[in-house]
Protein backbone atom coordinates (compact mmCIF):
# COMPACT_ATOMS: atom_id res chain seq x y z
CA UNK A 1 0.00 0.00 0.00
CA UNK A 2 2.70 2.49 0.89
CA UNK A 3 4.39 3.60 -2.28
CA UNK A 4 6.10 6.92 -1.62
CA UNK A 5 6.19 9.23 -4.64
CA UNK A 6 7.72 12.10 -2.66
CA UNK A 7 10.64 11.28 -0.39
CA UNK A 8 12.20 14.08 1.61
CA UNK A 9 15.21 13.51 3.83
CA UNK A 10 16.81 16.18 5.99
CA UNK A 11 15.72 18.96 3.63
CA UNK A 12 17.02 22.34 4.76
CA UNK A 13 16.92 25.87 3.43
CA UNK A 14 18.90 28.68 4.99
CA UNK A 15 18.41 32.13 3.45
CA UNK A 16 21.32 34.59 3.61
CA UNK A 17 23.24 32.31 6.02
CA UNK A 18 20.88 33.33 8.82
CA UNK A 19 17.21 32.55 8.21
CA UNK A 20 16.55 28.86 8.82
CA UNK A 21 13.34 28.75 6.82
CA UNK A 22 13.25 24.96 6.60
CA UNK A 23 15.23 22.97 9.12
CA UNK A 24 16.04 19.32 8.40
CA UNK A 25 12.58 18.09 7.56
CA UNK A 26 11.87 14.53 6.45
CA UNK A 27 8.61 13.07 5.23
CA UNK A 28 7.11 10.81 2.62
CA UNK A 29 3.97 11.20 0.55
CA UNK A 30 2.33 8.13 -0.91
CA UNK A 31 1.11 7.87 -4.47
CA UNK A 32 -2.43 9.11 -4.82
CA UNK A 33 -2.44 10.83 -1.45
CA UNK A 34 -3.61 14.33 -0.56
CA UNK A 35 -0.94 15.50 1.83
CA UNK A 36 -1.41 18.73 3.72
CA UNK A 37 1.21 21.05 5.14
CA UNK A 38 -0.34 23.02 7.95
CA UNK A 39 1.41 25.82 9.78
CA UNK A 40 1.42 29.48 10.72
CA UNK A 41 2.82 32.33 8.60
CA UNK A 42 6.52 31.96 7.99
CA UNK A 43 6.55 28.30 9.06
CA UNK A 44 8.39 27.33 5.89
CA UNK A 45 5.56 25.83 3.85
CA UNK A 46 6.18 27.80 0.66
CA UNK A 47 9.93 27.33 1.02
CA UNK A 48 9.44 23.56 1.26
CA UNK A 49 7.27 23.56 -1.85
CA UNK A 50 9.80 25.82 -3.59
CA UNK A 51 12.56 23.26 -3.05
CA UNK A 52 10.38 20.38 -4.21
CA UNK A 53 9.35 22.18 -7.41
CA UNK A 54 12.97 23.07 -8.26
CA UNK A 55 12.63 26.82 -7.77
CA UNK A 56 14.83 26.93 -4.70
CA UNK A 57 18.09 25.10 -4.23
CA UNK A 58 18.15 23.24 -0.93
CA UNK A 59 20.98 24.17 1.41
CA UNK A 60 21.10 20.58 2.61
CA UNK A 61 19.23 17.30 2.31
CA UNK A 62 17.62 15.46 -0.56
CA UNK A 63 14.19 15.25 -2.12
CA UNK A 64 13.02 12.70 -4.65
CA UNK A 65 9.92 13.09 -6.79
CA UNK A 66 8.93 9.73 -8.25
CA UNK A 67 12.50 8.64 -7.72
CA UNK A 68 14.06 11.68 -9.41
CA UNK A 69 16.38 13.90 -7.38
CA UNK A 70 15.24 17.53 -7.50
CA UNK A 71 18.79 18.91 -7.36
CA UNK A 72 20.49 16.36 -9.62
CA UNK A 73 17.87 16.25 -12.34
CA UNK A 74 15.57 19.26 -12.01
CA UNK A 75 14.48 19.34 -15.65
CA UNK A 76 13.09 15.80 -15.43
CA UNK A 77 11.25 16.69 -12.25
CA UNK A 78 9.68 19.74 -13.92
CA UNK A 79 8.10 17.54 -16.57
CA UNK A 80 6.13 15.45 -14.10
CA UNK A 81 4.99 18.09 -11.63
CA UNK A 82 2.34 20.78 -11.69
CA UNK A 83 2.65 23.91 -9.60
CA UNK A 84 -0.02 26.30 -8.39
CA UNK A 85 1.88 28.94 -6.44
CA UNK A 86 0.63 31.06 -3.58
CA UNK A 87 0.56 34.16 -5.80
CA UNK A 88 -1.51 34.65 -8.91
CA UNK A 89 0.93 34.19 -11.75
CA UNK A 90 -1.22 34.43 -14.86
CA UNK A 91 -0.38 37.28 -17.21
CA UNK A 92 -3.13 39.85 -16.77
CA UNK A 93 -2.66 41.34 -20.21
CA UNK A 94 -3.50 38.04 -21.87
CA UNK A 95 -6.75 36.08 -21.92
CA UNK A 96 -7.32 32.94 -19.89
CA UNK A 97 -6.98 30.88 -23.04
CA UNK A 98 -3.74 32.57 -24.07
CA UNK A 99 -2.33 32.00 -20.60
CA UNK A 100 -3.03 28.29 -20.50
CA UNK A 101 -1.75 27.79 -24.05
CA UNK A 102 1.40 29.68 -23.14
CA UNK A 103 2.09 27.28 -20.27
CA UNK A 104 1.33 24.36 -22.60
CA UNK A 105 4.01 25.66 -24.97
CA UNK A 106 6.49 25.90 -22.09
CA UNK A 107 5.90 22.18 -21.56
CA UNK A 108 6.38 21.53 -25.25
CA UNK A 109 2.96 19.91 -25.65
CA UNK A 110 1.98 19.67 -29.32
CA UNK A 111 -0.74 22.12 -30.32
CA UNK A 112 -3.44 19.61 -31.25
CA UNK A 113 -3.15 17.92 -27.86
CA UNK A 114 -2.81 21.11 -25.84
CA UNK A 115 -5.81 22.77 -27.49
CA UNK A 116 -8.07 19.91 -26.57
CA UNK A 117 -6.67 19.57 -23.09
CA UNK A 118 -6.89 23.30 -22.41
CA UNK A 119 -10.55 23.43 -23.35
CA UNK A 120 -11.25 20.38 -21.18
CA UNK A 121 -9.50 21.94 -18.21
CA UNK A 122 -11.19 25.30 -18.66
CA UNK A 123 -14.49 23.46 -18.87
CA UNK A 124 -13.70 21.60 -15.67
CA UNK A 125 -12.99 24.77 -13.71
CA UNK A 126 -15.94 26.55 -15.31
CA UNK A 127 -14.02 29.18 -17.23
CA UNK A 128 -14.94 28.31 -20.80
CA UNK A 129 -16.84 31.55 -21.32
CA UNK A 130 -14.41 33.76 -19.44
CA UNK A 131 -11.36 32.33 -21.18
CA UNK A 132 -11.81 34.77 -24.05
CA UNK A 133 -11.41 37.75 -21.73
CA UNK A 134 -8.24 39.29 -20.39
CA UNK A 135 -7.30 37.94 -16.99
CA UNK A 136 -7.32 41.43 -15.45
CA UNK A 137 -11.12 41.26 -15.55
CA UNK A 138 -11.26 38.03 -13.48
CA UNK A 139 -12.40 37.81 -9.88
CA UNK A 140 -10.17 36.23 -7.24
CA UNK A 141 -11.98 32.91 -7.47
CA UNK A 142 -11.76 32.84 -11.25
CA UNK A 143 -8.06 33.54 -11.10
CA UNK A 144 -7.50 30.69 -8.65
CA UNK A 145 -9.40 28.32 -10.88
CA UNK A 146 -7.38 29.45 -13.87
CA UNK A 147 -4.16 28.88 -11.92
CA UNK A 148 -5.39 25.38 -11.12
CA UNK A 149 -6.12 24.67 -14.77
CA UNK A 150 -2.69 26.03 -15.74
CA UNK A 151 -1.04 23.75 -13.19
CA UNK A 152 -2.72 20.70 -14.71
CA UNK A 153 -1.95 21.21 -18.39
CA UNK A 154 0.91 18.68 -18.40
CA UNK A 155 -1.12 16.00 -16.55
CA UNK A 156 1.30 16.07 -13.64
CA UNK A 157 1.94 13.06 -11.46
CA UNK A 158 2.45 15.33 -8.48
CA UNK A 159 0.59 18.58 -8.01
CA UNK A 160 1.80 21.27 -5.62
CA UNK A 161 -0.85 23.63 -4.36
CA UNK A 162 0.28 26.51 -2.19
CA UNK A 163 -2.70 27.99 -0.33
CA UNK A 164 -5.18 27.22 -3.12
CA UNK A 165 -8.15 28.64 -1.22
CA UNK A 166 -6.65 31.66 0.52
CA UNK A 167 -8.84 34.72 0.42
CA UNK A 168 -11.78 33.00 -1.30
CA UNK A 169 -15.38 32.74 -0.13
CA UNK A 170 -16.76 29.47 1.23
CA UNK A 171 -18.48 28.34 -1.99
CA UNK A 172 -15.39 28.87 -4.11
CA UNK A 173 -13.24 27.11 -1.52
CA UNK A 174 -15.54 24.10 -1.59
CA UNK A 175 -15.53 24.10 -5.39
CA UNK A 176 -11.72 24.14 -5.48
CA UNK A 177 -11.54 21.23 -3.06
CA UNK A 178 -14.05 19.28 -5.12
CA UNK A 179 -11.71 19.66 -8.09
CA UNK A 180 -8.78 18.52 -6.00
CA UNK A 181 -10.68 15.45 -4.83
CA UNK A 182 -11.63 14.61 -8.39
CA UNK A 183 -8.00 14.76 -9.49
CA UNK A 184 -7.13 12.30 -6.77
CA UNK A 185 -9.95 9.87 -7.50
CA UNK A 186 -9.92 10.04 -11.30
CA UNK A 187 -6.23 10.35 -12.08
CA UNK A 188 -4.67 8.98 -8.90
CA UNK A 189 -2.75 12.25 -8.77
CA UNK A 190 -0.63 12.93 -5.72
CA UNK A 191 -1.33 16.33 -4.21
CA UNK A 192 0.79 18.28 -1.77
CA UNK A 193 -1.20 21.19 -0.46
CA UNK A 194 -0.61 23.92 2.09
CA UNK A 195 -3.47 25.62 3.83
CA UNK A 196 -4.37 27.89 6.65
CA UNK A 197 -7.87 26.54 7.02
CA UNK A 198 -8.00 23.82 9.64
CA UNK A 199 -11.41 22.47 8.64
CA UNK A 200 -10.19 22.06 5.07
CA UNK A 201 -7.10 20.17 6.15
CA UNK A 202 -9.23 18.02 8.41
CA UNK A 203 -11.85 17.27 5.80
CA UNK A 204 -9.87 16.83 2.62
CA UNK A 205 -6.35 15.67 3.49
CA UNK A 206 -5.43 12.04 3.86
CA UNK A 207 -2.49 13.02 6.00
CA UNK A 208 -1.36 16.26 7.56
CA UNK A 209 2.07 17.47 8.60
CA UNK A 210 2.09 20.26 11.15
CA UNK A 211 5.02 22.50 10.44
CA UNK A 212 6.30 25.32 12.59
CA UNK A 213 9.54 27.31 12.57
CA UNK A 214 10.87 25.17 9.73
CA UNK A 215 10.35 21.85 11.48
CA UNK A 216 7.73 19.15 11.10
CA UNK A 217 6.26 18.68 14.54
CA UNK A 218 3.83 15.90 13.76
CA UNK A 219 2.60 14.09 10.68
CA UNK A 220 -0.36 11.72 10.67
CA UNK A 221 -3.92 11.23 9.50
CA UNK A 222 -6.40 13.82 10.80
CA UNK A 223 -8.05 11.06 12.86
CA UNK A 224 -4.85 10.05 14.58
CA UNK A 225 -3.83 13.65 15.16
CA UNK A 226 -7.08 14.36 16.90
CA UNK A 227 -6.89 11.18 18.92
CA UNK A 228 -3.37 12.07 19.84
CA UNK A 229 -4.26 15.21 21.71
CA UNK A 230 -5.82 13.18 24.55
CA UNK A 231 -9.06 11.90 23.18
CA UNK A 232 -12.60 13.17 23.66
CA UNK A 233 -14.06 15.53 26.19
CA UNK A 234 -17.11 14.63 28.28
CA UNK A 235 -18.91 17.20 30.35
CA UNK A 236 -21.47 16.04 32.92
CA UNK A 237 -23.86 17.65 35.36
CA UNK A 238 -25.12 15.72 38.39
CA UNK A 239 -27.84 16.42 40.97
CA UNK A 240 -25.75 16.11 44.10
CA UNK A 241 -22.10 16.58 44.69
CA UNK A 242 -20.47 13.73 46.49
CA UNK A 243 -16.92 13.53 47.80
CA UNK A 244 -16.39 10.10 46.34
CA UNK A 245 -17.58 11.10 42.90
CA UNK A 246 -14.08 11.91 41.76
CA UNK A 247 -12.81 8.64 43.07
CA UNK A 248 -15.54 6.68 41.30
CA UNK A 249 -14.93 8.46 38.03
CA UNK A 250 -11.22 7.88 38.26
CA UNK A 251 -11.88 4.18 38.53
CA UNK A 252 -13.53 4.04 35.11
CA UNK A 253 -11.26 2.78 32.39
CA UNK A 254 -10.47 5.38 29.71
CA UNK A 255 -10.77 8.48 31.89
CA UNK A 256 -7.50 10.34 31.88
CA UNK A 257 -8.27 13.69 33.47
CA UNK A 258 -10.98 15.10 35.74
CA UNK A 259 -11.72 18.74 36.36
CA UNK A 260 -14.44 20.09 38.66
CA UNK A 261 -15.73 23.36 37.32
CA UNK A 262 -17.04 25.99 39.66
CA UNK A 263 -20.42 26.01 37.93
CA UNK A 264 -21.13 22.43 38.99
CA UNK A 265 -20.06 20.81 35.76
CA UNK A 266 -17.41 18.15 35.64
CA UNK A 267 -15.16 17.95 32.62
CA UNK A 268 -13.44 14.68 31.81
CA UNK A 269 -10.83 13.89 29.24
CA UNK A 270 -11.40 10.38 28.01
CA UNK A 271 -10.16 7.93 25.43
CA UNK A 272 -12.99 6.74 23.17
CA UNK A 273 -15.80 8.86 24.57
CA UNK A 274 -18.57 6.84 22.94
CA UNK A 275 -17.71 3.77 25.01
CA UNK A 276 -16.88 5.60 28.24
CA UNK A 277 -20.03 7.73 28.46
CA UNK A 278 -22.41 4.82 29.34
CA UNK A 279 -19.89 3.62 31.91
CA UNK A 280 -19.94 7.00 33.61
CA UNK A 281 -23.70 7.06 33.77
CA UNK A 282 -23.83 3.54 35.19
CA UNK A 283 -21.19 4.21 37.85
CA UNK A 284 -22.93 7.35 39.02
CA UNK A 285 -26.39 5.75 38.99
CA UNK A 286 -25.00 2.99 41.21
CA UNK A 287 -24.03 5.71 43.68
CA UNK A 288 -27.59 7.05 43.53
CA UNK A 289 -26.50 10.14 41.68
CA UNK A 290 -28.58 11.43 38.84
CA UNK A 291 -26.83 12.55 35.68
CA UNK A 292 -28.91 15.43 34.37
CA UNK A 293 -26.78 16.34 31.40
CA UNK A 294 -23.93 14.81 29.43
CA UNK A 295 -22.14 16.21 26.38
CA UNK A 296 -19.50 14.50 24.35
CA UNK A 297 -17.18 16.59 22.16
CA UNK A 298 -14.51 15.32 19.87
CA UNK A 299 -11.33 17.38 19.56
CA UNK A 300 -11.09 19.57 16.47
CA UNK A 301 -8.04 20.46 14.44
CA UNK A 302 -7.98 23.70 16.42
CA UNK A 303 -7.11 21.76 19.52
CA UNK A 304 -4.58 19.69 17.63
CA UNK A 305 -3.00 22.82 16.30
CA UNK A 306 -3.00 24.51 19.70
CA UNK A 307 -1.42 21.48 21.31
CA UNK A 308 1.42 21.19 18.83
CA UNK A 309 2.22 24.80 18.03
CA UNK A 310 0.95 26.53 21.15
CA UNK A 311 -0.84 28.97 18.87
CA UNK A 312 -4.29 29.68 17.68
CA UNK A 313 -4.39 29.64 13.91
CA UNK A 314 -7.64 31.56 13.66
CA UNK A 315 -6.03 34.78 14.76
CA UNK A 316 -3.42 34.35 12.06
CA UNK A 317 -5.87 33.74 9.28
CA UNK A 318 -6.90 37.35 9.21
CA UNK A 319 -3.36 38.66 8.84
CA UNK A 320 -2.52 36.37 5.97
CA UNK A 321 -5.70 37.32 4.17
CA UNK A 322 -4.79 40.95 4.61
CA UNK A 323 -1.37 40.36 3.12
CA UNK A 324 -3.02 38.65 0.23
CA UNK A 325 -5.39 41.52 -0.44
CA UNK A 326 -2.45 43.90 -0.28
CA UNK A 327 -0.59 41.91 -2.93
CA UNK A 328 -3.58 42.06 -5.20
CA UNK A 329 -3.89 45.79 -4.79
CA UNK A 330 -0.23 46.18 -5.64
CA UNK A 331 -0.73 44.27 -8.88
CA UNK A 332 -3.59 46.49 -9.83
CA UNK A 333 -1.60 49.63 -9.05
CA UNK A 334 0.92 48.58 -11.69
CA UNK A 335 -1.43 49.29 -14.53
Amino acid at each position, binding site marked *: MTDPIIKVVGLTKIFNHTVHAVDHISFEVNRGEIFGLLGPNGAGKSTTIGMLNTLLKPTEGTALIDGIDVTKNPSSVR*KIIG*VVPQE*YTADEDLTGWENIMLIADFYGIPRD*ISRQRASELLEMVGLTEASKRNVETYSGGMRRRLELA*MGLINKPRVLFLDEPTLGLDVQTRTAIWEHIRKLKSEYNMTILVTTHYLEEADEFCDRIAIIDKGKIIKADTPENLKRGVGGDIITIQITKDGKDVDLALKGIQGVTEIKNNSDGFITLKVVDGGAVAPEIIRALTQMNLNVTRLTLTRPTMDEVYMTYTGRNLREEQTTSEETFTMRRTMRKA*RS
Partner: protein
Amino acid sequence: MEEEGINSGPLHGLWAVTNRELKKWYKEPFIFIISLVQPIIWIGLFGKAMNLGEIFSAGSLNIPGLDLPKQIIDSLSQEVLKSTFGTTNYFSFLAVGMLSFIVLFSAMSSGMTIVWDRRLGFLNKMLTTPLPRGNVIMGKVLSSVIKALVQAVIVLLIAVLLGLTFSAQFSVFSLAITFFALFLLAMGLSSLFIMLAIKSTRWETQMAIMNLLNLPLLFASNAFYPVKFMPYWLKPVVMVNPLTYANNVARAMLIGVTPTASVAFSVLYLVSFAAIFSFVGIFLSWKYISS
Protein backbone atom coordinates in the same frame (compact mmCIF):
# COMPACT_ATOMS: atom_id res chain seq x y z
CA MET B 1 1.12 9.49 -18.40
CA GLU B 2 4.16 9.86 -20.62
CA GLU B 3 2.98 10.82 -24.06
CA GLU B 4 4.35 11.12 -27.53
CA GLY B 5 5.11 14.30 -29.33
CA ILE B 6 6.36 16.31 -26.36
CA ASN B 7 8.94 18.75 -27.61
CA SER B 8 11.83 18.95 -25.19
CA GLY B 9 14.33 20.38 -27.65
CA PRO B 10 16.58 23.23 -26.51
CA LEU B 11 14.55 25.83 -28.38
CA HIS B 12 11.06 24.74 -27.33
CA GLY B 13 8.97 27.51 -25.86
CA LEU B 14 11.23 30.22 -27.30
CA TRP B 15 8.60 31.46 -29.69
CA ALA B 16 5.96 31.27 -26.95
CA VAL B 17 8.02 33.60 -24.72
CA THR B 18 8.70 35.93 -27.64
CA ASN B 19 5.14 36.01 -28.86
CA ARG B 20 3.84 36.70 -25.35
CA GLU B 21 5.77 39.99 -25.32
CA LEU B 22 4.74 40.86 -28.85
CA LYS B 23 1.09 40.15 -28.08
CA LYS B 24 1.07 42.68 -25.26
CA TRP B 25 2.38 45.13 -27.75
CA TYR B 26 0.07 44.60 -30.70
CA LYS B 27 -2.94 44.05 -28.51
CA GLU B 28 -2.38 47.51 -27.09
CA PRO B 29 -1.90 49.85 -30.06
CA PHE B 30 -1.90 52.85 -27.77
CA ILE B 31 1.42 51.90 -26.13
CA PHE B 32 2.81 51.19 -29.56
CA ILE B 33 1.88 54.62 -30.86
CA ILE B 34 3.13 56.39 -27.73
CA SER B 35 6.53 54.76 -28.12
CA LEU B 36 6.79 56.24 -31.63
CA VAL B 37 5.93 59.76 -30.57
CA GLN B 38 9.27 60.55 -29.02
CA PRO B 39 11.57 60.04 -32.01
CA ILE B 40 9.06 61.78 -34.23
CA ILE B 41 9.05 64.80 -31.94
CA TRP B 42 12.84 64.82 -32.09
CA ILE B 43 12.83 64.63 -35.84
CA GLY B 44 10.39 67.51 -35.88
CA LEU B 45 12.18 69.60 -33.25
CA PHE B 46 15.78 69.13 -34.24
CA GLY B 47 15.31 68.32 -37.86
CA LYS B 48 12.75 70.96 -38.77
CA ALA B 49 12.29 73.54 -36.01
CA MET B 50 15.97 73.88 -35.10
CA ASN B 51 17.27 73.19 -38.52
CA LEU B 52 21.01 73.85 -38.46
CA GLY B 53 20.94 73.97 -42.23
CA GLU B 54 18.79 77.10 -42.15
CA ILE B 55 21.38 79.02 -40.12
CA PHE B 56 23.82 78.84 -42.96
CA SER B 57 21.45 79.77 -45.70
CA ALA B 58 21.66 83.09 -47.56
CA GLY B 59 18.47 84.27 -45.95
CA SER B 60 19.93 84.27 -42.46
CA LEU B 61 23.63 84.68 -43.06
CA ASN B 62 24.80 88.09 -44.12
CA ILE B 63 28.04 89.88 -43.29
CA PRO B 64 27.58 93.68 -43.12
CA GLY B 65 30.06 95.67 -45.14
CA LEU B 66 30.94 92.73 -47.26
CA ASP B 67 28.21 92.69 -49.77
CA LEU B 68 28.67 89.08 -50.80
CA PRO B 69 26.43 87.81 -53.51
CA LYS B 70 23.78 85.28 -52.45
CA GLN B 71 25.33 82.65 -54.60
CA ILE B 72 28.65 82.79 -52.75
CA ILE B 73 27.00 82.63 -49.35
CA ASP B 74 24.92 79.72 -50.48
CA SER B 75 27.79 77.70 -51.81
CA LEU B 76 29.88 78.67 -48.78
CA SER B 77 27.25 77.42 -46.36
CA GLN B 78 26.76 74.27 -48.40
CA GLU B 79 30.48 73.66 -47.99
CA VAL B 80 30.26 74.26 -44.22
CA LEU B 81 27.38 71.81 -43.91
CA LYS B 82 29.07 69.26 -46.09
CA SER B 83 32.31 69.36 -44.12
CA THR B 84 30.49 69.26 -40.78
CA PHE B 85 27.81 66.66 -41.31
CA GLY B 86 29.01 64.98 -44.47
CA THR B 87 25.80 66.04 -46.19
CA THR B 88 24.17 69.30 -47.03
CA ASN B 89 20.89 68.11 -45.59
CA TYR B 90 20.95 68.29 -41.78
CA PHE B 91 17.41 66.98 -41.62
CA SER B 92 18.43 63.76 -43.32
CA PHE B 93 21.51 63.52 -41.10
CA LEU B 94 19.37 63.74 -37.97
CA ALA B 95 16.50 61.59 -39.19
CA VAL B 96 18.85 58.67 -39.85
CA GLY B 97 20.34 59.17 -36.38
CA MET B 98 16.85 58.71 -34.97
CA LEU B 99 16.86 55.09 -36.14
CA SER B 100 19.44 54.08 -33.56
CA PHE B 101 17.66 56.31 -31.06
CA ILE B 102 14.40 54.37 -31.37
CA VAL B 103 16.31 51.11 -31.14
CA LEU B 104 17.96 52.30 -27.92
CA PHE B 105 14.69 53.33 -26.31
CA SER B 106 12.91 50.20 -27.37
CA ALA B 107 15.69 47.94 -26.07
CA MET B 108 15.84 49.82 -22.83
CA SER B 109 12.29 49.00 -21.85
CA SER B 110 12.86 45.28 -22.37
CA GLY B 111 14.69 45.08 -19.05
CA MET B 112 11.57 46.34 -17.39
CA THR B 113 9.48 43.36 -18.42
CA ILE B 114 11.70 40.91 -16.57
CA VAL B 115 11.44 42.98 -13.40
CA TRP B 116 7.65 42.80 -13.64
CA ASP B 117 7.73 39.09 -14.38
CA ARG B 118 9.80 38.50 -11.29
CA ARG B 119 7.62 40.74 -9.18
CA LEU B 120 4.33 39.26 -10.30
CA GLY B 121 5.38 35.63 -10.05
CA PHE B 122 5.27 34.90 -13.78
CA LEU B 123 9.01 34.29 -13.85
CA ASN B 124 8.71 31.68 -11.10
CA LYS B 125 5.88 30.04 -12.97
CA MET B 126 8.06 29.82 -16.08
CA LEU B 127 10.88 28.36 -14.04
CA THR B 128 8.78 25.50 -12.70
CA THR B 129 8.12 24.33 -16.26
CA PRO B 130 10.64 22.47 -18.45
CA LEU B 131 11.17 25.66 -20.50
CA PRO B 132 14.96 25.89 -21.03
CA ARG B 133 16.38 28.65 -18.83
CA GLY B 134 18.16 30.44 -21.63
CA ASN B 135 14.91 30.76 -23.61
CA VAL B 136 13.43 32.99 -20.93
CA ILE B 137 16.06 35.58 -21.81
CA MET B 138 16.38 34.79 -25.49
CA GLY B 139 12.64 35.25 -25.93
CA LYS B 140 12.83 38.64 -24.27
CA VAL B 141 15.77 39.68 -26.43
CA LEU B 142 14.10 38.43 -29.58
CA SER B 143 10.83 40.21 -28.92
CA SER B 144 12.67 43.38 -28.06
CA VAL B 145 14.66 43.18 -31.31
CA ILE B 146 11.50 42.66 -33.35
CA LYS B 147 9.79 45.60 -31.68
CA ALA B 148 12.83 47.82 -32.18
CA LEU B 149 13.10 46.99 -35.86
CA VAL B 150 9.40 47.53 -36.53
CA GLN B 151 9.64 50.90 -34.83
CA ALA B 152 12.74 51.77 -36.85
CA VAL B 153 10.88 50.97 -40.07
CA ILE B 154 8.06 53.29 -39.08
CA VAL B 155 10.42 56.10 -38.07
CA LEU B 156 12.20 55.76 -41.40
CA LEU B 157 8.92 55.92 -43.31
CA ILE B 158 7.88 59.05 -41.45
CA ALA B 159 11.28 60.63 -42.06
CA VAL B 160 10.88 59.93 -45.77
CA LEU B 161 7.46 61.57 -45.71
CA LEU B 162 8.97 64.60 -43.97
CA GLY B 163 11.62 64.97 -46.62
CA LEU B 164 14.52 62.61 -46.01
CA THR B 165 16.46 62.32 -49.24
CA PHE B 166 18.35 59.15 -50.00
CA SER B 167 21.74 59.21 -51.67
CA ALA B 168 22.08 58.48 -55.36
CA GLN B 169 23.62 55.07 -54.60
CA PHE B 170 20.66 54.04 -52.45
CA SER B 171 19.31 50.54 -53.15
CA VAL B 172 17.56 47.63 -51.45
CA PHE B 173 21.00 46.39 -50.56
CA SER B 174 21.81 49.54 -48.58
CA LEU B 175 18.50 49.19 -46.77
CA ALA B 176 19.34 45.59 -45.89
CA ILE B 177 22.77 46.52 -44.53
CA THR B 178 21.25 49.34 -42.49
CA PHE B 179 18.69 47.09 -40.88
CA PHE B 180 21.27 44.40 -40.28
CA ALA B 181 23.27 46.98 -38.32
CA LEU B 182 20.17 48.06 -36.41
CA PHE B 183 19.37 44.41 -35.70
CA LEU B 184 22.81 43.90 -34.19
CA LEU B 185 22.47 47.07 -32.16
CA ALA B 186 19.05 46.00 -30.85
CA MET B 187 20.37 42.54 -30.00
CA GLY B 188 23.31 43.85 -27.97
CA LEU B 189 21.40 46.64 -26.23
CA SER B 190 18.45 44.42 -25.30
CA SER B 191 20.78 41.81 -23.85
CA LEU B 192 22.58 44.54 -21.93
CA PHE B 193 19.44 45.98 -20.37
CA ILE B 194 17.94 42.58 -19.60
CA MET B 195 21.21 41.59 -17.98
CA LEU B 196 21.11 44.68 -15.79
CA ALA B 197 17.59 43.76 -14.72
CA ILE B 198 18.11 40.09 -14.09
CA LYS B 199 18.52 40.23 -10.32
CA SER B 200 16.39 43.26 -9.74
CA THR B 201 13.01 43.06 -8.05
CA ARG B 202 12.35 46.77 -7.96
CA TRP B 203 11.20 48.58 -11.04
CA GLU B 204 12.37 51.85 -9.49
CA THR B 205 15.96 50.60 -9.69
CA GLN B 206 15.45 49.65 -13.27
CA MET B 207 13.98 53.06 -14.10
CA ALA B 208 16.97 54.73 -12.47
CA ILE B 209 19.38 52.64 -14.54
CA MET B 210 17.47 53.49 -17.69
CA ASN B 211 17.50 57.19 -16.97
CA LEU B 212 21.15 57.09 -16.06
CA LEU B 213 22.09 55.44 -19.34
CA ASN B 214 19.72 56.68 -22.02
CA LEU B 215 20.66 60.31 -22.58
CA PRO B 216 24.42 59.83 -22.13
CA LEU B 217 24.31 56.93 -24.60
CA LEU B 218 22.39 59.09 -27.01
CA PHE B 219 24.39 62.31 -26.73
CA ALA B 220 27.74 60.57 -26.45
CA SER B 221 27.19 59.25 -29.94
CA ASN B 222 27.09 60.82 -33.36
CA ALA B 223 23.27 60.81 -33.45
CA PHE B 224 22.99 64.60 -33.41
CA TYR B 225 26.46 65.81 -34.11
CA PRO B 226 29.51 64.46 -35.90
CA VAL B 227 32.38 63.03 -33.88
CA LYS B 228 35.14 65.08 -35.41
CA PHE B 229 33.96 68.31 -33.77
CA MET B 230 33.52 66.80 -30.34
CA PRO B 231 35.89 67.67 -27.49
CA TYR B 232 38.85 65.31 -27.05
CA TRP B 233 37.56 63.91 -23.73
CA LEU B 234 34.27 62.87 -25.24
CA LYS B 235 35.72 61.25 -28.33
CA PRO B 236 36.86 57.97 -26.70
CA VAL B 237 33.38 57.48 -25.23
CA VAL B 238 31.74 58.13 -28.56
CA MET B 239 34.13 55.75 -30.24
CA VAL B 240 33.14 52.80 -28.02
CA ASN B 241 29.44 53.62 -28.10
CA PRO B 242 27.74 51.09 -30.41
CA LEU B 243 25.19 53.73 -31.44
CA THR B 244 27.97 55.57 -33.24
CA TYR B 245 28.68 52.56 -35.43
CA ALA B 246 25.05 51.91 -36.21
CA ASN B 247 24.74 55.55 -37.25
CA ASN B 248 27.88 55.27 -39.33
CA VAL B 249 26.45 52.37 -41.27
CA ALA B 250 22.98 53.86 -41.64
CA ARG B 251 24.27 57.25 -42.81
CA ALA B 252 26.73 55.76 -45.26
CA MET B 253 24.11 53.45 -46.68
CA LEU B 254 21.08 55.71 -46.76
CA ILE B 255 22.34 59.24 -47.33
CA GLY B 256 25.90 58.67 -48.50
CA VAL B 257 27.84 60.24 -45.63
CA THR B 258 31.44 59.02 -45.63
CA PRO B 259 31.81 57.52 -42.15
CA THR B 260 34.69 58.08 -39.73
CA ALA B 261 35.09 54.33 -39.40
CA SER B 262 34.52 52.22 -42.49
CA VAL B 263 31.20 50.43 -42.97
CA ALA B 264 32.92 47.05 -42.82
CA PHE B 265 34.62 47.89 -39.55
CA SER B 266 31.40 49.31 -38.11
CA VAL B 267 29.44 46.17 -38.97
CA LEU B 268 32.19 44.03 -37.47
CA TYR B 269 32.13 46.13 -34.33
CA LEU B 270 28.36 45.68 -34.03
CA VAL B 271 28.61 41.94 -34.64
CA SER B 272 31.08 41.63 -31.76
CA PHE B 273 28.95 43.87 -29.55
CA ALA B 274 25.82 41.82 -30.18
CA ALA B 275 27.61 38.48 -29.85
CA ILE B 276 29.40 39.33 -26.62
CA PHE B 277 26.41 40.80 -24.87
CA SER B 278 23.90 38.17 -25.89
CA PHE B 279 26.26 35.35 -24.87
CA VAL B 280 27.02 36.99 -21.54
CA GLY B 281 23.32 37.71 -21.04
CA ILE B 282 22.27 34.13 -21.67
CA PHE B 283 25.10 32.83 -19.51
CA LEU B 284 24.19 35.11 -16.62
CA SER B 285 20.53 34.23 -16.90
CA TRP B 286 21.44 30.59 -16.56
CA LYS B 287 23.35 31.40 -13.46
CA TYR B 288 21.27 34.02 -11.72
CA ILE B 289 17.70 33.72 -12.90
CA SER B 290 16.60 31.48 -10.04
CA SER B 291 17.53 32.27 -6.48
